[in-house]
């Protein structure tokens, strides 16, 4: 179960940041009405509000570079918690921003996963 959690976690993270960096609006496919995002302390609920928040971030382009991905099964029903650290490069900015992010993936009936919980923090200093 743990090996599978790591594989699913890694695949999901790659997919998530690829979408974020190339087609941010389609992140909506990864959230559902019960999803929650905490973005730098601000709490946002549901697909529409979460997607709005992400689309309105004050930059058009960005690139996520992942340093670490750790995953664990979160429950007997197939949930997975994924903990990511990395850096975020914005065009025109000399220094990357370092960040940590936590995802809680829940299986869908169609055999994939959606993001039930998402917590994002920049790492300063």
């Amino acid at each position, binding site marked *: 179960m743990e090996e599978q959690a790591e594989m699913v976690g890694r695949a999901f993270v790659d997919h998530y940041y690829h979408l974020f960096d190339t087609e941010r609006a389609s992140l909506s496919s990864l959230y559902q009405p019960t999803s929650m995002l905490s973005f730098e302390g601000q709490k946002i609920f549901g697909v529409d509000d979460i997607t709005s928040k992400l689309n309105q971030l004050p930059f058009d382009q960005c690139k996520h570079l992942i340093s670490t991905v750790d995953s664990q099964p979160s429950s007997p029903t197939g949930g997975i918690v994924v903990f990511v*650290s990395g850096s975020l490069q914005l065009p025109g900015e000399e220094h990357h921003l370092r960040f940590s992010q936590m995802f809680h993936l829940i299986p869908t009936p169609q055999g994939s996963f959606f993001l039930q919980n998402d917590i994002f923090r920049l790492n300063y200093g």
Partner: protein
Amino acid sequence: MDPDSLAKAFVEHYYTLFDANRGALANLYQEGSMLTFEGQKIQGSQNIVAKLTSLPFQQCQHSITTVDCQPSGPAGGMLVFVSGNLQLAGEQHALKFSQMFHLMPTPQGSFYVFNDIFRLNYA
């Protein structure tokens, strides 16, 4: 207690124990608990506490910068995401860290740590 206050209270309790009496952390984990510590995976209360008590420092002090929490699902679990600093005795600079806990309720009305992931944040 509202979830945010619960999360903060748990986190303060966890790091107070860690900094004062690391062996007592055993009460916060159970047999199915999982810890990933800097990429190393450990399972079960005994093994987890063995890992934490064998870390290469006697004294440390955690200071918390941010705590975020969200309910994890219908089973009453809570996800808690922490960032902060870890000061080791004799070291000039504090280490920065992030840590994620998934707390599950116990029948007695408290919480234990089911998932625990720890990473240092390097510059």
